[in-house]
């Protein structure tokens, strides 16, 4: 019976793995194709079924005058904006989440849950109509087409996530821990930084990851709020998306844009496993 369950387990994992990797394999294969290989039906294996070329990849380093889309600078812009915005969002968000988890607030009829809900409700509104007011807002402060401007907008996008997730994780850390620390003579800040925070590493890691992901993959705001100075990666990649959709270069671009987050995934996984250990050591 056990071996039946085990086989089932591995089967399930394998199936899902195929589902996850499938599109990437297809993208990989497609990134080496050209117009003919694409339009003559589905082809999979280079050399065996079609003549591979490096055009799709080369396009990513050529300038647009050469028919390419240089993604190197936008790549680093994205790193900067996403990284800084996530950092600020995590810091401010975690502090706020701690307060919402540990203290009682009451501004009139507005209580803790309402405030938490206020944070997350910023994610509800579809961004479409916000293009105009944010444009006006940033232009009044001269922050259009700037890293700082984008960071400010991204904070609005990312802080709610940080708050929402950290409130959940802080709620799982028993209050006794705080109490103990306070009794031991710490002030609330020390209690937070030295005792509670280290016990919430999994939460921080997860919140950090989501901030990075949502920031890295945003397209809408960077599309309307930047022009020439600061271009982010997704905006630059869709510069390839003309009426003749180039399957090959978009495939290559998709693979490239995932790469940095892969690194993040590794780091996250390590922290998750470690977090487990530290959680058990309480």
């Amino acid at each position, binding site marked *: 019976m056990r071996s039946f369950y085990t086989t089932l387990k591995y089967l*399930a994992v394998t199936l899902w793995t195929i589902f996850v990797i499938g*599109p990437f394999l297809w993208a990989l294969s497609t990134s080496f194709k050209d117009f003919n290989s694409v339009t003559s039906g589905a082809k999979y294996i280079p050399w065996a079924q079609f003549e591979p070329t490096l055009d799709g990849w080369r396009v990513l380093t050529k300038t647009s005058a050469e028919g390419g889309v240089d993604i190197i600078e936008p790549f680093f812009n994205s790193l900067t904006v996403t990284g800084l915005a996530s950092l600020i969002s995590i810091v401010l968000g975690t502090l706020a989440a701690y307060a919402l988890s540990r203290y009682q607030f009451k501004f009139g009829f507005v209580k803790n849950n309402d405030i938490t809900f206020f*944070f997350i409700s910023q994610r509800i509104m579809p961004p*479409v109509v916000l293009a105009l007011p944010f444009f006006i807002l940033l232009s009044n402060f001269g922050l259009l087409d700037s890293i700082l401007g984008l960071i400010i907008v991204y904070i609005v996008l990312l802080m709610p996530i940080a708050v929402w997730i950290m409130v959940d994780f802080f709620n799982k850390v028993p209050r006794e821990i705080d109490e103990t620390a306070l009794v031991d003579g710490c002030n609330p800040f020390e209690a937070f930084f030295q005792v509670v925070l280290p016990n919430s590493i999994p939460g921080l890691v997860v919140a950090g990851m989501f901030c990075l992901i949502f920031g890295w*993959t945003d397209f809408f705001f960077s599309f309307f709020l930047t022009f020439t100075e600061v271009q982010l990666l997704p905006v630059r990649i869709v510069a390839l998306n003309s009426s003749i959709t180039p399957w090959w270069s978009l495939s290559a671009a998709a693979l490239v844009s995932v790469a940095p987050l892969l690194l993040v995934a590794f780091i996250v996984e390590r922290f998750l496993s470690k*977090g487990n250990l530290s959680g058990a050591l309480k």
Partner: protein
Amino acid sequence: MRFGHKYAFLLPGLLVLIAILIFPILFTVRLSLSGWNSYNPNLDFVGIKNYIRLFTSDARFWEAFFRLSFFSFTTVFLQYVLGFGLALLVWKDILFKRFFRVLFLIPMMTTPVIMTVIWKTVFHESLGPVNDLLSYVGVSYNWLSDPVVSKFTVIIVEVWQWTPFMFLLLLAGLLSLPKEAFLAASIDGAGPIRKFIYVTFPLMAPISIGAIIIRLIEASKIMDTIYVLTSGGPGTSTETTSFYIFIKGLREFQFGYAAAMSFTYLIIMIISLTVIVNVLVRVFNGRNS
């Protein structure tokens, strides 16, 4: 003394958020009371005309809402079930555990705008691999051009992209569960299934609820997938509220009306989510033995 501290924690984040948001939100409200469109980019005041139009003569908005509910509930449910299942699978007792954990995270990290183009090529009815492979078993579907099948294609792509979200949150939750509860259950002689139903699942309630709510919020804004795959078609079979707002706002430039739609959407979502949270709490806590 404690008072000072609690505000010191909360206010920096809260105030920064409000400071950045105050103008856009107020502007959008004012926008919804105006007739701003491509021809008339002014904040003229037309009262609640946009709202009246929305509620009395825009069946398309409500149809889109109905479709949105279908998509959101289906995808979030699937993502939750699959995500939880996957998290349980790689939680412990499996080879290459860490490799799988990293692997399962990857889809979430792709930029939807770009990845969906890849999906479009995957599901392309004549040039894509899905129909090609299916032809070996004699089947082929119109993934993007059939009013019913296209809905499932959208769901498949969404599930692929966002199950890792649930997976990660739930895995993190599982990894921080206190061991004591499990020890107690083992001592009581509970098998794996009973352990799950009576220990794991209830302990995961807060994380589950949080994850479901966030996913519902995000799923409702679904845009890139539909935009690239089907443009809301065939006909209007995959058109959701957010896509409809997009068309009205950025294609037709009826900004005033789009703002009214956005606000209505916001209010409806807030009410729905509040109800859903209550339902979920009851569902999860009802299991507590």
